[in-house]
């Protein structure tokens, strides 16, 4: 069964609270499960992916979307 990943909308959330909230959400999920994360352009899209990768989560894709970015993460 393929389940559409949950989405965490972090638009408007400053750094590093955005990465912190993403980590908390990922920690609550099963290893291997997917999470879509929406972040703002600028600092957030530069800071959030490395912060999550550093904690062992995998960035699968990063797509621009109407001035924001959609990240797809796999929980480590």
């Amino acid at each position: 069964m393929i389940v559409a990943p949950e989405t965490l909308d972090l638009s408007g959330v400053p750094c590093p609270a955005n990465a912190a909230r993403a980590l908390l959400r990922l920690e609550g999920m099963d290893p291997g499960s997917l999470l879509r994360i929406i972040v703002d352009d600028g600092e957030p899209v530069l800071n959030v992916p490395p912060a999550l990768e550093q904690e062992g989560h995998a960035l699968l894709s990063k797509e621009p979307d109407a001035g924001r970015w959609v990240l797809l993460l796999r929980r480590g």
Partner: protein
Amino acid sequence: METNIDNGMARDIYLDNAATTRPDPAVLAAMARADSDCYANASTVHRMGVAAGRLIERARASVAAALGAELPEVVFTSGGTEANNLALKGAAAALADRGDHLIISAVEHPSVSRVAQALACRGLRLSIAPVDREGVVDPAAVRSLLTGRTILVSVMHANNETGAIQPLHEIAMLCRAQGALFHTDACQSFTRRPLDTRGLPADLVTVDAHKLHGPKGVGALYVRRGLRLTPLLDGGGQENGLRSGTYNTAGITGFGEAVALAMRTDAAAITTLRDRFEARLAAAIPDVRINGPVGNRLGTISSVTLPRPDAKTLLHSLSRQGIYLSAGSACAAGRTEPSQVLLAMGLAPEAALRTVRVSLSRFTTEQEVDAAADALARAVREVGG
């Protein structure tokens, strides 16, 4: 001073929990871990900063869940006093073009009433909504004071001296109808009485950590989404610009932990102990008066007016026996003026001066309330009359 040790005296009996509570050991442990392991500035974006930010956001989620709030609606402050200042001064400054009138109740904590008086000195008009003999605000009084120029109405959720619960819902609905903001100081009631911002049309809610076994010097203001306040502190722009200053990571972590623990506390068990204390005291001293609305007050507080002696004498006598309670509110301690709250309820000044407050927590035991009731009864009898 060494306390809580077996030096031939009984253990301390701490019944001053409305002034502040003993931090829960789990809270202290979480704070120590935060201070030693996550000491980086929680506004920085490197790995250690994110680790500290993670603690802040975890605490925010805990406080938000207890309030039925969204995460951005929780603004951490240095405590109840700062949150109350931010609510009143921040709204008055931001909405100066919309009005010039404030309403507060007659039984607010000084961190609301003094702020309102300070604003009145700067030109705002201030109205005080009276309370009845049980210390409860009549919503009709608020309705008659509301005008099109009213910026904000502030009525506390539960009173810190009597535990009286105020009719927030009715008052908040009146404010909404009139276009005034509604603020409530929920420092005493937070986690003890339901206060869900999804059901209550409050715009601003003050909560505090140290009243619920968290650390001193940490609180939060709930700010309804979309509401603009003028900050008290400008600087680095933390908390969406509403409260600048490097995060108190350990304190905020302790707050979040304390709220999570408090949400699992059996409030009914504390009320049972409080009622046991009052019944035992009333059986020993027939002419005690219980202040506040007997059926509608916090289960952690008992305000009793005794026939004699004055509360200060009682306080010191019990203190020598290792039993700690309060005469009036803690902030007024050191002065022997009667409590403004009790006066507003119509108590005579000399009766207010014979009133003590016993306040319980989840750490309070049956033996402790029995010992306190017996000690108070003994002290009254010793003075004779």
